[in-house]
């Protein structure tokens, strides 16, 4: 049974997206990869549920493989 939320859950999507894109301004490719990884780790810890995280990993990897 799926536990990962895949319907819209962010109140103000455009504000959120800008927050994310502003994060990478003035960073090198290496710095961006590091910042992204740190962000993933922080959010995963916040979620804390291995089943949810496994579902998210599966979807992310599947889309990339297409």
């Amino acid at each position, binding site marked *: 049974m799926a536990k990962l939320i895949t319907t819209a859950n*962010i109140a103000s999507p455009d504000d959120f*997206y*800008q927050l994310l*894109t502003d994060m*990478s301004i003035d960073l090198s*490719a290496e710095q961006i990869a590091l910042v992204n990884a740190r962000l993933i780790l922080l959010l995963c810890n916040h979620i804390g549920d291995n089943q949810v995280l496994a579902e998210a990993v599966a979807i992310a990897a599947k889309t990339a493989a297409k």
Partner: protein
Amino acid sequence: MLASYQFPQYSYQRSTDQDSTTPIRHPVVIIGAGPIGLAAAVDFSIKGIPVVLLDDNNTVSVGSRAVCYAKRFLDISDRLGVGQRLIDKGVTWNIGKVFFEEEQIYSFNMLAEEHHRRPGFINLQQYYLEQFYVERLMQFPRASLRWKNKLIDIQQNQQTVTLTIATPDGSYQLQADYVLACDGANSNTRSLCGLESKGQVFQDRFLIADVLMTDQRFPAERWFWFNPPFHQGSSTLLHRQPDNLWRIDFDLGWDADPEVEKRPENIIPRVKAFLGDDVDFELEWTSVYTFGCRRMPDFRHKRIFFAGDSAHQVSPFGARGANSGIEDVDNLVWKIELALKGQASEELLNSYSEERGLAADENILNSTRSTDFITPKNPANKVLRDAVLTLAKEFSFARPLVNSGRLSVPPILRNCSLISADTDSFDCAVEVGSPCTDGPITLRKEERYLLSLLGNKFHCLLFIDDHKQIDQQLIEEIVRLKQCRQPIDTYIVLKEPYQLQLPDGVAIIVDHLQLINARLDASNQCFYLIRPDQIISARARKFSVDSLLNMQAHALGELR
């Protein structure tokens, strides 16, 4: 010369003002007969104010240019008496579809509610729009539309603006109480005043191809492609216009050479790759353009007011140019009307720049974000953007993040000085500072739309559940609203038909579908105060003439 449109030639005519030894004074002079200047001239004319409208050219917009007109544009055009012509000629659409590579990832509807008089959008070539507005203005004998009149100098003091104008017959001077500069992104008036519009220029180039095609494979919808097979690594936008004309917009990137890209031999293969080899089409008009987002810090320069692109400019994604320009006109003209009668406070005149500045900031923010999504600023943002697009078809959470243009809706004038904040609670999408909602109602047994009854003066909507409450005392109270300095006309909104002889300025309307009640979260005795531009300036749940008059004074900037 276009295959589908014959440009009108408006002739220069010498004005008797040019024979005068001293400059003739007019209440209002408008610079620029584009969509915004024309709309302003019509708005002054229906208010009985004679206008002079100057344009340095002698025809309408060459090329299609602006295409998409939003619901609010149509509602304002209805008030100005042009709405139906726009609808009759335009292509109505509400649906937008977004594609990624070969697949549709989602669609959206610009008209979220039924029972509005006007649709979410129409598409119409700018030259038709201007032509219809010119013809509307010609119905007012006191309006003076002067072609081949170019502003070459403008000066102002406390009382007067003095304009120097070049014509084929030499130059002459005019004086005006107020001037509206509607002369576009490269405003000559703005330069002559030594003022600037500042912001960001985007490093990208786009190709517009307006294509004549009788093939009917595409519906009347807005279609947007990210990375389509026919234009890889980039984006394409398609809109249908009247006369079998189609607007195709290709993103070319910053490195494209505009001179090379403009050549038909380079445009035709791009269009063929898109439409297929078997489709017959003809290039009607093409342009390679760049754009910026910028605005003036203040849209008011004493007696000179800037409206439309002269005041603020946005990228085209979202159709926020002409649509915000006409909202400027809507906001400004009634305020200047009061100023001409000596009845406008400084606060009221300054509220134009406050309110429309807020709108410009919102439009610039939205169109900047769209541009950043469509052409990401760095590789990391492109990866992020592509991640969103690869998820959006299967997972609905990603769809609100896809940004192919946030299409024009009127901004809500939140926290603006002359809008009364709610003191009672209302649970509806319509807020103070938004345009009033629309919906069918009945007036004297005739079905009408609510917005067709509002505008050009202050109105009060008073919601009454039971007609027995309409007694002599209530009517006497309401009549006081009509007798104040800026008279307020009242519509008593009932749910069931009821006949009653009422004094001038008071009428009963029936909300027979009870949609207005629902959309405004109305209750018995609840009232809305609506400005001459149909913006809700105040509302409350308990009707009181004294508080209503107080709210109007606040809306006019007369309360300190």
